[in-house]
């Protein structure tokens, strides 16, 4: 680590005013990168959460029909479902419960008695069971007219598609941030090379290897990047906490709680190290290329 972040002994790059802006820019870049990473991981966790709950947990809806005996239909459907292999549990949802579910949309005191509310059955699929939901749906409709298995599939597909697009967008943003960071670093190093060209020449002429000179630049710039990355990351994490808190405090929220998960945390913590390594590599390339122009 000492070597990695060592001082630039002869070049004294740390006295340059021109490169002091670099940590600020890197901080901004890391802030944005951390937010995209946070979004990326939170989203991918949310998607897998939804798919899990939605595929394990189905609903059967029996259409309201004033002429039919709905209670009998419900009993028939539950019997059929319970007999199907792979179904762990089928439970009719009571009228009161249904009303409760609808409360946020219709209000507490709505006169619900007369409303054509369908009957619902909650179906829980056993873990690790492969069930042909389409076939089950057909069988159910045949046995109990008006019954329909709501497999959430179209809705879920759309959500997953949306999630994936946002993930692509986040990945694109990350790529863009990476490119911009590299370009900024290249310009900073070029400025440094020009400002210190005389010292570099002297070092070169008294027998310094390219590596010796390149290392002073690498160490200095990767330290700047790392030191800029830390505050950027910290601010981004604070912002994510606040955002999560606000989401969590929304009442009857449609959004599931966000979590970046352990992979997300690791990715976020790796960010400053990655940017320091990226800087180091970029600086090395630029310096060696410029030194090769000398005899």
């Amino acid at each position, binding site marked *: 680590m000492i070597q990695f972040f060592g001082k630039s002994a*002869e070049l004294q790059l740390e006295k340059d005013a021109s490169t002091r802006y670099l940590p600020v820019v890197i901080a901004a870049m890391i802030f944005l990168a951390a937010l995209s990473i946070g979004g990326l991981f939170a989203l991918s966790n949310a998607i897998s959460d939804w798919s899990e709950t939605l595929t394990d947990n189905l609903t059967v809806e029996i259409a309201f029909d004033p002429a039919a005996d709905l209670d009998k239909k419900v009993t028939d459907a539950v019997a059929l479902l319970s007999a199907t292999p792979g179904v762990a549990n089928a439970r009719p949802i009571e009228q009161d419960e249904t009303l409760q579910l609808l409360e946020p949309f219709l209000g507490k005191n709505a006169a619900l008695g007369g409303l054509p509310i369908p009957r619902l059955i909650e179906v829980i699929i056993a873990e690790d069971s492969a069930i042909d939901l389409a076939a089950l749906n057909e069988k159910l409709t045949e046995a109990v007219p008006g019954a329909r298995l709501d497999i959430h599939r179209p809705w879920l597909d759309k959500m997953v598609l949306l999630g994936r697009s946002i993930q692509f967008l986040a990945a694109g943003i990350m790529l863009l941030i990476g490119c911009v960071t590299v370009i900024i670093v290249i310009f900073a190093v070029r400025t440094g090379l020009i400002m210190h060209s005389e*010292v570099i020449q002297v070092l070169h*002429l008294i027998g310094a290897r390219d590596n010796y000179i390149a290392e002073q630049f690498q160490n200095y710039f990767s330290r700047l990047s790392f030191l800029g990355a830390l505050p950027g990351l910290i601010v981004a994490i604070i912002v994510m906490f606040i955002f999560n808190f606000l989401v969590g405090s929304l009442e009857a929220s449609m959004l599931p709680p966000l979590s970046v998960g352990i992979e997300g945390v690791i990715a976020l913590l790796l960010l400053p190290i990655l940017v320091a390594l990226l800087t180091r590599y970029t600086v090395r390339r630029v310096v060696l290329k410029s030194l090769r122009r000398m*005899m």
Partner: protein
Amino acid sequence: MVRFENVGMRYGLGPEVLRDISFHLRPGSFHFLTGPTGAGKSSLLKLLALSHRPSRGLVTLFNKEVSSLDREDLPAMRRKIGVVYQDFRLLDHLSALENVALPLKIAGAKNSQIYQHVAELLEWVGLGRQVDAKPPTLSGGEKQRVAIARAVINRPQLLIADEPTGSMDAEMGLRLMYLFQELNKIGTTVVVATHDLELIKRFGNPVMYLKDGMLTTRAQDDLPAQFSKDPA
């Protein structure tokens, strides 16, 4: 040690500042290089110091033809060459001590070995009290002495000095010439570029005379009293 064969040199696309230079320096020899201002002395020394490439001809140093060398071999070769530049080329933000220690440090010597040695040398060139001074606060002659100390600190096999005594009084100049002579006695090949014909006469070493980019070797008594009156 050093061999030039039909060497020509130009800066960029400019005219040739050195033309058809051929000479041979034996190991352990001591030569003066003189000639009027603008004749190309510093340019010739740049070829010797491996800071520039010839535009034609062959330069051989330490029995190796320079253009045939790999880039990675050059630093090791440069470490065998000590150079005193006409404009010193000291690093302004380092102390005199650190400047002189630089060649050792770059060659990978340990700090404990470096500083004792460096301090002694600085003492010897009369800068015992200025070891911690930065070059911008030193006089011209003092800077020149730091530059000389840096050139000789790692006992180079080839010592190149461009007007090494131009900025100091005659007495200090002589003292440093004696230093070069001492190094020469222990085997260092020395080339000193100078305008100072008095100095050349005093030491009596062989002289390379450069004029208009052409080199001739001259005996001591063949040198002009003044460059401007030289008919050649």
